[in-house]
Protein backbone atom coordinates (compact mmCIF):
# COMPACT_ATOMS: atom_id res chain seq x y z
CA UNK A 1 0.00 0.00 0.00
CA UNK A 2 1.58 3.27 -1.15
CA UNK A 3 0.89 6.95 -0.65
CA UNK A 4 -1.84 6.88 -3.31
CA UNK A 5 -3.59 4.15 -1.36
CA UNK A 6 -3.62 6.24 1.82
CA UNK A 7 -4.69 9.38 -0.04
CA UNK A 8 -7.54 7.34 -1.48
CA UNK A 9 -8.44 6.24 2.05
CA UNK A 10 -8.66 9.80 3.38
CA UNK A 11 -10.61 10.87 0.32
CA UNK A 12 -12.99 7.95 0.87
CA UNK A 13 -13.44 8.92 4.54
CA UNK A 14 -14.25 12.48 3.48
CA UNK A 15 -16.94 11.17 1.14
CA UNK A 16 -18.42 8.80 3.71
CA UNK A 17 -18.56 11.23 6.65
CA UNK A 18 -20.14 13.78 4.35
CA UNK A 19 -22.90 11.35 3.38
CA UNK A 20 -23.21 10.13 6.98
CA UNK A 21 -22.94 13.65 8.38
CA UNK A 22 -26.56 13.93 9.54
CA UNK A 23 -26.56 10.41 10.93
CA UNK A 24 -23.48 11.12 13.05
CA UNK A 25 -24.86 14.48 14.14
CA UNK A 26 -28.14 12.89 15.21
CA UNK A 27 -26.28 10.26 17.22
CA UNK A 28 -24.47 13.14 18.89
CA UNK A 29 -27.73 15.02 19.45
CA UNK A 30 -29.05 12.10 21.50
CA UNK A 31 -26.19 12.08 24.03
CA UNK A 32 -24.03 15.06 23.09
CA UNK A 33 -24.20 18.39 21.36
CA UNK A 34 -25.20 17.56 17.81
CA UNK A 35 -21.99 18.44 16.03
CA UNK A 36 -19.99 15.24 15.46
CA UNK A 37 -21.01 14.83 11.82
CA UNK A 38 -20.39 18.49 11.12
CA UNK A 39 -17.01 18.33 12.84
CA UNK A 40 -15.77 15.30 10.92
CA UNK A 41 -17.13 16.47 7.57
CA UNK A 42 -15.29 19.76 8.07
CA UNK A 43 -12.10 17.99 9.13
CA UNK A 44 -11.78 15.25 6.53
CA UNK A 45 -12.84 17.54 3.69
CA UNK A 46 -10.04 19.87 4.79
CA UNK A 47 -7.62 16.92 4.95
CA UNK A 48 -8.53 15.83 1.43
CA UNK A 49 -7.99 19.38 0.17
CA UNK A 50 -4.66 19.65 1.99
CA UNK A 51 -3.51 16.35 0.47
CA UNK A 52 -4.51 17.53 -3.00
CA UNK A 53 -2.33 20.60 -2.54
CA UNK A 54 0.72 19.28 -0.71
CA UNK A 55 3.28 16.78 -1.89
CA UNK A 56 3.00 13.66 0.27
CA UNK A 57 5.26 10.98 -1.23
CA UNK A 58 4.98 8.39 1.54
CA UNK A 59 2.11 6.76 3.49
CA UNK A 60 3.52 8.36 6.63
CA UNK A 61 3.49 11.84 5.14
CA UNK A 62 -0.12 11.37 4.01
CA UNK A 63 -1.32 10.40 7.49
CA UNK A 64 0.83 13.05 9.18
CA UNK A 65 -0.74 15.83 7.11
CA UNK A 66 -4.17 14.29 7.71
CA UNK A 67 -3.65 14.25 11.46
CA UNK A 68 -2.33 17.82 11.58
CA UNK A 69 -5.20 19.04 9.44
CA UNK A 70 -7.77 17.35 11.69
CA UNK A 71 -6.18 18.94 14.74
CA UNK A 72 -6.26 22.41 13.22
CA UNK A 73 -9.70 22.19 11.64
CA UNK A 74 -12.00 20.01 13.77
CA UNK A 75 -11.81 21.15 17.36
CA UNK A 76 -14.00 19.49 19.96
CA UNK A 77 -13.00 16.17 21.44
CA UNK A 78 -12.81 14.29 18.17
CA UNK A 79 -10.35 16.71 16.54
CA UNK A 80 -7.41 16.16 18.85
CA UNK A 81 -8.25 12.48 19.27
CA UNK A 82 -8.55 11.55 15.61
CA UNK A 83 -5.77 13.99 14.77
CA UNK A 84 -3.45 12.30 17.23
CA UNK A 85 -4.51 8.88 15.99
CA UNK A 86 -3.46 9.68 12.43
CA UNK A 87 -0.26 11.39 13.52
CA UNK A 88 0.76 8.41 15.65
CA UNK A 89 -0.03 6.05 12.79
CA UNK A 90 2.09 8.23 10.53
CA UNK A 91 5.04 8.10 12.87
CA UNK A 92 4.73 4.31 13.02
CA UNK A 93 4.86 4.10 9.22
CA UNK A 94 8.01 6.21 9.11
CA UNK A 95 9.37 7.22 5.70
CA UNK A 96 8.74 3.92 3.96
CA UNK A 97 7.33 4.33 0.43
CA UNK A 98 5.14 1.27 1.03
CA UNK A 99 3.27 -0.25 3.94
CA UNK A 100 2.40 -3.93 4.09
CA UNK A 101 -0.33 -5.46 6.25
CA UNK A 102 1.81 -5.92 9.39
CA UNK A 103 3.05 -2.33 9.09
CA UNK A 104 -0.54 -1.10 8.79
CA UNK A 105 -1.51 -3.15 11.82
CA UNK A 106 1.30 -1.59 13.83
CA UNK A 107 0.22 1.83 12.63
CA UNK A 108 -3.36 1.24 13.79
CA UNK A 109 -2.07 -0.01 17.15
CA UNK A 110 -0.05 3.18 17.46
CA UNK A 111 -3.18 5.16 16.62
CA UNK A 112 -5.13 3.40 19.35
CA UNK A 113 -2.31 3.99 21.82
CA UNK A 114 -2.34 7.67 20.93
CA UNK A 115 -6.10 7.96 21.50
CA UNK A 116 -6.07 6.17 24.82
CA UNK A 117 -3.05 8.10 26.04
CA UNK A 118 -4.60 11.46 25.16
CA UNK A 119 -8.19 10.73 26.08
CA UNK A 120 -7.51 8.37 29.01
CA UNK A 121 -10.55 6.32 28.04
CA UNK A 122 -10.54 2.59 28.67
CA UNK A 123 -12.78 -0.10 27.21
CA UNK A 124 -16.44 0.11 28.08
CA UNK A 125 -16.59 3.86 28.70
CA UNK A 126 -18.66 4.47 25.57
CA UNK A 127 -16.14 6.19 23.33
CA UNK A 128 -14.44 5.67 19.96
CA UNK A 129 -12.05 3.40 21.86
CA UNK A 130 -14.78 0.80 22.12
CA UNK A 131 -14.79 0.49 18.34
CA UNK A 132 -11.10 1.10 17.66
CA UNK A 133 -9.62 -1.25 20.26
CA UNK A 134 -11.42 -4.45 19.26
CA UNK A 135 -10.94 -3.62 15.57
CA UNK A 136 -7.20 -3.17 15.91
CA UNK A 137 -6.92 -6.35 17.99
CA UNK A 138 -8.91 -8.39 15.51
CA UNK A 139 -6.88 -7.02 12.59
CA UNK A 140 -3.51 -7.87 14.19
CA UNK A 141 -4.77 -11.27 15.23
CA UNK A 142 -5.99 -12.10 11.73
CA UNK A 143 -2.63 -11.12 10.28
CA UNK A 144 -0.79 -13.14 12.91
CA UNK A 145 -3.01 -16.08 11.96
CA UNK A 146 -1.91 -15.60 8.35
CA UNK A 147 -5.33 -14.53 7.11
CA UNK A 148 -5.69 -13.14 3.62
CA UNK A 149 -5.79 -9.35 3.19
CA UNK A 150 -9.50 -9.58 2.46
CA UNK A 151 -10.10 -11.65 5.56
CA UNK A 152 -7.97 -9.36 7.70
CA UNK A 153 -9.90 -6.26 6.63
CA UNK A 154 -13.16 -8.12 7.16
CA UNK A 155 -12.04 -8.94 10.70
CA UNK A 156 -11.17 -5.27 11.20
CA UNK A 157 -14.54 -3.87 10.17
CA UNK A 158 -16.61 -6.67 11.72
CA UNK A 159 -14.97 -5.99 15.07
CA UNK A 160 -15.41 -2.24 14.64
CA UNK A 161 -19.10 -2.65 13.82
CA UNK A 162 -19.61 -4.94 16.78
CA UNK A 163 -17.66 -2.58 19.02
CA UNK A 164 -19.72 0.41 17.94
CA UNK A 165 -22.93 -1.58 18.41
CA UNK A 166 -21.82 -2.66 21.86
CA UNK A 167 -21.63 0.96 23.01
CA UNK A 168 -25.44 1.16 22.94
CA UNK A 169 -26.06 -0.43 26.36
CA UNK A 170 -23.05 1.29 27.93
CA UNK A 171 -23.24 4.24 30.29
CA UNK A 172 -20.79 6.92 29.17
CA UNK A 173 -17.95 7.70 31.55
CA UNK A 174 -15.92 9.89 29.21
CA UNK A 175 -16.76 12.78 26.94
CA UNK A 176 -19.88 14.89 26.82
CA UNK A 177 -22.21 11.91 27.00
CA UNK A 178 -21.00 11.21 30.54
CA UNK A 179 -22.97 14.26 31.75
CA UNK A 180 -26.17 12.37 31.04
CA UNK A 181 -25.27 9.65 33.48
CA UNK A 182 -27.72 6.74 33.16
CA UNK A 183 -29.58 8.58 30.39
CA UNK A 184 -26.62 7.92 28.09
CA UNK A 185 -27.59 4.24 28.04
CA UNK A 186 -29.44 3.03 24.94
CA UNK A 187 -27.67 5.18 22.36
CA UNK A 188 -24.77 4.34 20.05
CA UNK A 189 -21.70 6.47 20.68
CA UNK A 190 -21.15 8.83 17.72
CA UNK A 191 -17.36 8.56 17.89
CA UNK A 192 -17.53 4.77 17.90
CA UNK A 193 -19.85 4.96 14.92
CA UNK A 194 -17.49 7.28 13.03
CA UNK A 195 -14.54 5.04 13.85
CA UNK A 196 -16.38 2.15 12.21
CA UNK A 197 -17.04 4.32 9.14
CA UNK A 198 -13.36 5.28 8.93
CA UNK A 199 -12.25 1.66 9.06
CA UNK A 200 -14.89 0.63 6.53
CA UNK A 201 -13.46 3.25 4.21
CA UNK A 202 -10.05 1.63 4.64
CA UNK A 203 -11.42 -1.80 3.78
CA UNK A 204 -13.33 -0.49 0.76
CA UNK A 205 -10.27 1.24 -0.67
CA UNK A 206 -8.23 -1.93 -0.14
CA UNK A 207 -10.82 -4.17 -1.79
CA UNK A 208 -11.00 -1.82 -4.78
CA UNK A 209 -7.24 -2.09 -5.16
CA UNK A 210 -7.12 -5.86 -5.01
CA UNK A 211 -10.10 -6.01 -7.33
Amino acid at each position, binding site marked *: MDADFFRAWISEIATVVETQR*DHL*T*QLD*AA*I*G*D*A*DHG*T*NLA*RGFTAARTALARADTPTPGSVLLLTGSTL*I*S*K*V*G*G*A*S*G*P*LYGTAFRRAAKALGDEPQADLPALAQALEAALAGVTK*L*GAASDGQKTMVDALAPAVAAFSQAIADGASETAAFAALTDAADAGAHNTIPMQA*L*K*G*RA*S*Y*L*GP*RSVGHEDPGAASTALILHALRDVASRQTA
Partner: protein
Amino acid sequence: MKKLINSPDMVVSEALAGMAAAHPSLSVDVENKVITRAGSPTAGKVGLVSGGGSGHEPLHGGFVGHGMLDAACAGEMFTSPVPDQVLMATQRVDGGAGVLHIVKNYTGDVLNFQMAAELADDEDIEVVSVVVNDDVAVQDSLYTAGRRGVGATVFVEKIAGALAERGASLAEVAAVAAEVNERTRSFGVALTSCTVPAAGKPTFDLAEQEIELGIGIHGEPGRTRAPLRPARDIAATVMDAINADLPLEGDLLVMVNGMGGTPLIELYLTFGEVNQYVAGHGARISRNLVGNYITSLEMQGFSVTVCGLTQTLADLWDAPVQTPGLRWGR
Protein backbone atom coordinates in the same frame (compact mmCIF):
# COMPACT_ATOMS: atom_id res chain seq x y z
CA MET B 1 -35.37 26.12 11.92
CA LYS B 2 -35.94 29.87 12.21
CA LYS B 3 -32.77 31.87 12.55
CA LEU B 4 -31.42 35.25 11.50
CA ILE B 5 -28.57 33.74 9.51
CA ASN B 6 -27.42 33.48 5.91
CA SER B 7 -26.11 29.93 5.95
CA PRO B 8 -25.28 27.57 8.82
CA ASP B 9 -21.58 27.34 8.04
CA MET B 10 -21.15 31.12 7.92
CA VAL B 11 -22.83 32.01 11.21
CA VAL B 12 -19.74 32.22 13.38
CA SER B 13 -17.58 34.27 11.02
CA GLU B 14 -20.42 36.60 10.01
CA ALA B 15 -21.30 37.20 13.65
CA LEU B 16 -17.63 37.99 14.33
CA ALA B 17 -17.72 40.47 11.46
CA GLY B 18 -20.67 42.12 13.18
CA MET B 19 -18.80 42.21 16.47
CA ALA B 20 -15.85 43.80 14.72
CA ALA B 21 -18.10 46.50 13.31
CA ALA B 22 -19.84 47.06 16.64
CA HIS B 23 -16.83 47.24 18.95
CA PRO B 24 -13.84 49.38 17.96
CA SER B 25 -12.32 48.52 21.35
CA LEU B 26 -11.78 45.00 20.05
CA SER B 27 -9.51 43.71 17.34
CA VAL B 28 -11.37 40.86 15.71
CA ASP B 29 -9.47 38.43 13.48
CA VAL B 30 -12.48 37.08 11.63
CA GLU B 31 -10.52 34.59 9.56
CA ASN B 32 -8.87 32.94 12.54
CA LYS B 33 -11.77 33.65 14.90
CA VAL B 34 -9.57 35.28 17.49
CA ILE B 35 -10.73 38.36 19.40
CA THR B 36 -8.19 40.50 21.25
CA ARG B 37 -8.22 43.92 22.84
CA ALA B 38 -7.21 46.59 20.37
CA GLY B 39 -3.58 47.32 21.15
CA SER B 40 -2.68 43.93 22.62
CA PRO B 41 -0.43 42.83 24.19
CA THR B 42 -0.30 44.91 27.36
CA ALA B 43 3.38 44.93 28.26
CA GLY B 44 4.15 43.44 31.66
CA LYS B 45 0.56 42.32 32.28
CA VAL B 46 -0.46 38.69 32.55
CA GLY B 47 -2.52 37.85 29.48
CA LEU B 48 -5.88 36.12 29.93
CA VAL B 49 -7.04 33.85 27.13
CA SER B 50 -10.28 31.95 27.08
CA GLY B 51 -12.42 30.47 24.39
CA GLY B 52 -14.85 27.74 23.57
CA GLY B 53 -17.51 26.80 21.14
CA SER B 54 -19.65 29.59 19.72
CA GLY B 55 -23.32 29.93 20.63
CA HIS B 56 -22.72 31.08 24.23
CA GLU B 57 -22.54 34.82 23.52
CA PRO B 58 -21.62 37.17 25.11
CA LEU B 59 -19.17 34.54 26.44
CA HIS B 60 -16.26 34.67 25.54
CA GLY B 61 -15.68 37.43 23.00
CA GLY B 62 -18.00 39.83 24.80
CA PHE B 63 -15.77 39.65 27.85
CA VAL B 64 -12.61 40.86 26.12
CA GLY B 65 -11.55 44.25 27.39
CA HIS B 66 -10.08 46.17 30.29
CA GLY B 67 -10.42 44.28 33.55
CA MET B 68 -11.36 40.97 32.02
CA LEU B 69 -10.00 38.90 29.11
CA ASP B 70 -7.19 39.84 26.73
CA ALA B 71 -8.30 37.37 24.10
CA ALA B 72 -11.07 34.96 23.24
CA CYS B 73 -11.02 32.15 20.69
CA ALA B 74 -14.35 31.39 19.04
CA GLY B 75 -14.77 27.77 18.00
CA GLU B 76 -17.37 26.50 15.60
CA MET B 77 -20.91 26.27 17.00
CA PHE B 78 -20.66 24.35 20.31
CA THR B 79 -17.25 23.06 19.27
CA SER B 80 -14.12 24.02 21.16
CA PRO B 81 -11.55 26.11 19.31
CA VAL B 82 -8.53 24.41 17.75
CA PRO B 83 -4.98 24.61 19.14
CA ASP B 84 -3.84 26.97 16.36
CA GLN B 85 -6.39 29.59 17.43
CA VAL B 86 -5.45 29.31 21.08
CA LEU B 87 -1.76 29.50 20.26
CA MET B 88 -2.34 32.57 18.09
CA ALA B 89 -4.32 34.27 20.87
CA THR B 90 -1.64 33.34 23.40
CA GLN B 91 1.10 34.84 21.23
CA ARG B 92 -0.86 38.03 20.64
CA VAL B 93 -1.55 38.78 24.30
CA ASP B 94 1.72 37.65 25.85
CA GLY B 95 3.09 40.84 27.35
CA GLY B 96 6.08 39.04 28.86
CA ALA B 97 4.37 38.14 32.13
CA GLY B 98 2.92 34.87 30.89
CA VAL B 99 -0.57 33.85 29.85
CA LEU B 100 -3.45 32.27 31.76
CA HIS B 101 -5.70 29.87 29.87
CA ILE B 102 -9.22 29.76 31.28
CA VAL B 103 -10.68 26.46 30.08
CA LYS B 104 -14.18 25.15 30.63
CA ASN B 105 -14.05 21.49 31.59
CA TYR B 106 -15.13 19.68 28.43
CA THR B 107 -12.97 17.00 26.88
CA GLY B 108 -12.67 18.96 23.67
CA ASP B 109 -11.79 22.24 25.30
CA VAL B 110 -9.29 20.63 27.64
CA LEU B 111 -7.53 18.68 24.86
CA ASN B 112 -7.31 21.60 22.43
CA PHE B 113 -6.09 24.08 25.04
CA GLN B 114 -3.60 21.48 26.28
CA MET B 115 -2.15 21.06 22.80
CA ALA B 116 -1.98 24.84 22.42
CA ALA B 117 -0.20 25.15 25.75
CA GLU B 118 2.40 22.64 24.57
CA LEU B 119 2.90 24.61 21.35
CA ALA B 120 3.23 27.84 23.36
CA ASP B 121 5.74 26.15 25.60
CA ASP B 122 7.81 25.33 22.51
CA GLU B 123 7.93 29.08 21.95
CA ASP B 124 8.88 29.74 25.57
CA ILE B 125 5.63 31.49 26.42
CA GLU B 126 4.76 30.67 29.99
CA VAL B 127 1.22 29.33 30.16
CA VAL B 128 -0.81 28.21 33.16
CA SER B 129 -4.23 26.66 32.62
CA VAL B 130 -7.18 26.82 34.99
CA VAL B 131 -9.99 24.40 34.29
CA VAL B 132 -13.45 25.57 35.34
CA ASN B 133 -15.82 22.84 36.58
CA ASP B 134 -18.71 24.24 38.60
CA ASP B 135 -21.77 22.34 37.38
CA VAL B 136 -23.24 20.40 40.30
CA ALA B 137 -25.67 18.62 37.98
CA VAL B 138 -22.76 16.37 37.00
CA GLN B 139 -21.34 13.96 39.54
CA ASP B 140 -17.64 14.52 39.89
CA SER B 141 -15.39 11.49 39.75
CA LEU B 142 -11.82 10.65 38.94
CA TYR B 143 -12.96 8.08 36.41
CA THR B 144 -15.19 10.35 34.34
CA ALA B 145 -14.87 13.53 32.34
CA GLY B 146 -15.87 15.28 35.57
CA ARG B 147 -18.00 18.35 36.01
CA ARG B 148 -18.79 20.78 33.25
CA GLY B 149 -17.57 24.34 33.34
CA VAL B 150 -20.48 26.75 33.09
CA GLY B 151 -21.38 30.02 34.86
CA ALA B 152 -18.30 30.14 37.05
CA THR B 153 -16.38 30.97 33.88
CA VAL B 154 -17.86 34.48 33.94
CA PHE B 155 -16.78 34.99 37.55
CA VAL B 156 -13.30 33.56 36.93
CA GLU B 157 -12.75 35.75 33.88
CA LYS B 158 -13.91 38.89 35.71
CA ILE B 159 -12.04 38.37 38.96
CA ALA B 160 -8.81 36.99 37.51
CA GLY B 161 -8.96 39.77 34.94
CA ALA B 162 -9.20 42.39 37.66
CA LEU B 163 -6.20 40.96 39.50
CA ALA B 164 -4.14 40.80 36.31
CA GLU B 165 -5.02 44.43 35.63
CA ARG B 166 -3.43 45.27 38.99
CA GLY B 167 -0.14 43.80 37.81
CA ALA B 168 -0.23 40.54 39.74
CA SER B 169 1.98 37.63 38.66
CA LEU B 170 0.81 34.69 36.58
CA ALA B 171 0.92 32.47 39.66
CA GLU B 172 -1.23 34.92 41.63
CA VAL B 173 -3.73 35.34 38.82
CA ALA B 174 -3.94 31.57 38.33
CA ALA B 175 -4.41 31.11 42.08
CA VAL B 176 -7.34 33.52 42.31
CA ALA B 177 -8.90 31.94 39.23
CA ALA B 178 -8.68 28.53 40.86
CA GLU B 179 -10.04 29.94 44.12
CA VAL B 180 -13.08 31.43 42.39
CA ASN B 181 -13.72 28.13 40.63
CA GLU B 182 -13.51 26.22 43.92
CA ARG B 183 -15.92 28.61 45.62
CA THR B 184 -18.49 28.54 42.82
CA ARG B 185 -21.32 26.16 41.91
CA SER B 186 -23.95 26.21 39.16
CA PHE B 187 -27.08 24.40 38.02
CA GLY B 188 -29.08 24.89 34.83
CA VAL B 189 -32.65 24.29 33.68
CA ALA B 190 -34.11 24.22 30.16
CA LEU B 191 -37.69 24.98 29.20
CA THR B 192 -36.95 24.37 25.53
CA SER B 193 -34.11 22.92 23.50
CA CYS B 194 -31.93 24.89 21.13
CA THR B 195 -31.25 24.22 17.46
CA VAL B 196 -27.68 23.95 16.18
CA PRO B 197 -27.79 25.67 12.76
CA ALA B 198 -25.89 22.89 10.98
CA ALA B 199 -28.13 20.26 12.58
CA GLY B 200 -31.28 22.09 11.52
CA LYS B 201 -33.57 20.75 14.22
CA PRO B 202 -33.86 20.94 18.01
CA THR B 203 -31.23 18.87 19.81
CA PHE B 204 -33.92 17.44 22.08
CA ASP B 205 -37.69 17.64 22.30
CA LEU B 206 -39.62 18.60 25.39
CA ALA B 207 -43.35 18.19 25.84
CA GLU B 208 -45.44 21.31 26.48
CA GLN B 209 -45.34 20.74 30.23
CA GLU B 210 -41.83 19.28 30.54
CA ILE B 211 -38.52 20.83 31.58
CA GLU B 212 -34.96 19.49 31.63
CA LEU B 213 -33.07 19.72 34.90
CA GLY B 214 -29.29 19.84 35.06
CA ILE B 215 -28.54 20.93 31.51
CA GLY B 216 -25.24 22.26 30.23
CA ILE B 217 -24.68 25.01 27.69
CA HIS B 218 -24.53 22.96 24.50
CA GLY B 219 -28.11 21.80 24.27
CA GLU B 220 -27.13 18.50 25.82
CA PRO B 221 -30.11 16.90 27.51
CA GLY B 222 -29.97 17.28 31.29
CA ARG B 223 -29.79 14.71 34.05
CA THR B 224 -33.56 14.32 34.41
CA ARG B 225 -36.87 15.52 33.05
CA ALA B 226 -39.51 17.00 35.31
CA PRO B 227 -42.95 18.54 34.93
CA LEU B 228 -43.11 22.31 34.47
CA ARG B 229 -43.61 23.94 37.87
CA PRO B 230 -43.94 27.45 39.26
CA ALA B 231 -40.71 29.47 39.12
CA ARG B 232 -40.51 29.37 42.91
CA ASP B 233 -40.36 25.56 42.92
CA ILE B 234 -37.91 25.38 40.03
CA ALA B 235 -35.67 27.91 41.78
CA ALA B 236 -35.85 25.81 44.95
CA THR B 237 -34.82 22.67 43.06
CA VAL B 238 -31.86 24.53 41.57
CA MET B 239 -30.81 26.07 44.87
CA ASP B 240 -31.22 22.80 46.76
CA ALA B 241 -28.78 21.16 44.34
CA ILE B 242 -26.25 23.97 44.81
CA ASN B 243 -26.74 24.20 48.56
CA ALA B 244 -26.33 20.44 48.94
CA ASP B 245 -22.95 20.63 47.23
CA LEU B 246 -21.64 23.81 48.83
CA PRO B 247 -23.75 25.12 51.72
CA LEU B 248 -24.81 28.74 51.29
CA GLU B 249 -23.22 31.06 53.80
CA GLY B 250 -22.02 34.61 54.19
CA ASP B 251 -21.84 37.07 51.32
CA LEU B 252 -22.59 35.58 47.94
CA LEU B 253 -22.10 36.62 44.35
CA VAL B 254 -25.10 35.21 42.48
CA MET B 255 -25.82 35.16 38.77
CA VAL B 256 -29.24 34.32 37.39
CA ASN B 257 -28.27 33.69 33.81
CA GLY B 258 -30.62 33.40 30.86
CA MET B 259 -29.95 30.64 28.32
CA GLY B 260 -30.69 33.02 25.44
CA GLY B 261 -34.43 32.77 24.81
CA THR B 262 -35.82 33.69 28.23
CA PRO B 263 -37.05 37.27 28.65
CA LEU B 264 -35.46 39.50 31.27
CA ILE B 265 -38.75 39.87 33.15
CA GLU B 266 -38.67 36.12 33.90
CA LEU B 267 -35.04 36.29 34.95
CA TYR B 268 -35.78 39.10 37.41
CA LEU B 269 -38.73 37.17 38.77
CA THR B 270 -36.50 34.12 39.19
CA PHE B 271 -33.78 36.20 40.83
CA GLY B 272 -36.37 37.34 43.34
CA GLU B 273 -37.11 33.70 44.18
CA VAL B 274 -33.42 32.85 44.44
CA ASN B 275 -32.89 35.85 46.70
CA GLN B 276 -35.64 34.68 49.04
CA TYR B 277 -34.20 31.18 49.11
CA VAL B 278 -30.76 32.49 49.99
CA ALA B 279 -32.14 34.76 52.71
CA GLY B 280 -34.12 31.82 54.05
CA HIS B 281 -30.87 29.90 54.38
CA GLY B 282 -29.13 32.59 56.38
CA ALA B 283 -26.87 33.82 53.61
CA ARG B 284 -26.89 37.09 51.70
CA ILE B 285 -26.57 38.05 48.04
CA SER B 286 -24.18 40.99 48.13
CA ARG B 287 -23.36 41.06 44.41
CA ASN B 288 -25.44 39.85 41.48
CA LEU B 289 -25.83 39.54 37.75
CA VAL B 290 -29.23 39.05 36.11
CA GLY B 291 -29.27 38.60 32.35
CA ASN B 292 -27.83 36.62 29.44
CA TYR B 293 -24.13 36.01 30.06
CA ILE B 294 -23.41 32.40 29.10
CA THR B 295 -26.07 31.19 26.74
CA SER B 296 -27.05 28.23 24.64
CA LEU B 297 -28.28 29.83 21.43
CA GLU B 298 -32.05 30.46 21.62
CA MET B 299 -32.73 28.00 24.42
CA GLN B 300 -35.35 29.06 26.95
CA GLY B 301 -34.21 28.44 30.49
CA PHE B 302 -31.79 29.70 33.07
CA SER B 303 -28.90 28.77 35.27
CA VAL B 304 -27.95 29.96 38.71
CA THR B 305 -24.31 30.40 39.69
CA VAL B 306 -23.32 31.03 43.29
CA CYS B 307 -19.89 32.07 44.55
CA GLY B 308 -18.98 32.48 48.21
CA LEU B 309 -17.21 35.82 48.40
CA THR B 310 -14.25 36.93 50.46
CA GLN B 311 -13.51 40.62 50.85
CA THR B 312 -10.69 40.27 48.32
CA LEU B 313 -12.92 38.58 45.77
CA ALA B 314 -15.64 41.19 46.30
CA ASP B 315 -13.15 44.00 45.71
CA LEU B 316 -11.90 42.33 42.54
CA TRP B 317 -15.50 41.85 41.40
CA ASP B 318 -16.19 45.55 41.96
CA ALA B 319 -13.04 46.63 40.11
CA PRO B 320 -13.59 48.48 36.82
CA VAL B 321 -14.45 46.36 33.81
CA GLN B 322 -15.05 47.57 30.29
CA THR B 323 -16.13 44.91 27.86
CA PRO B 324 -19.11 44.63 25.51
CA GLY B 325 -20.78 42.18 27.86
CA LEU B 326 -19.83 43.51 31.30
CA ARG B 327 -19.11 47.12 32.08
CA TRP B 328 -18.84 49.18 35.22
CA GLY B 329 -16.63 51.32 37.37
CA ARG B 330 -15.03 53.60 34.82
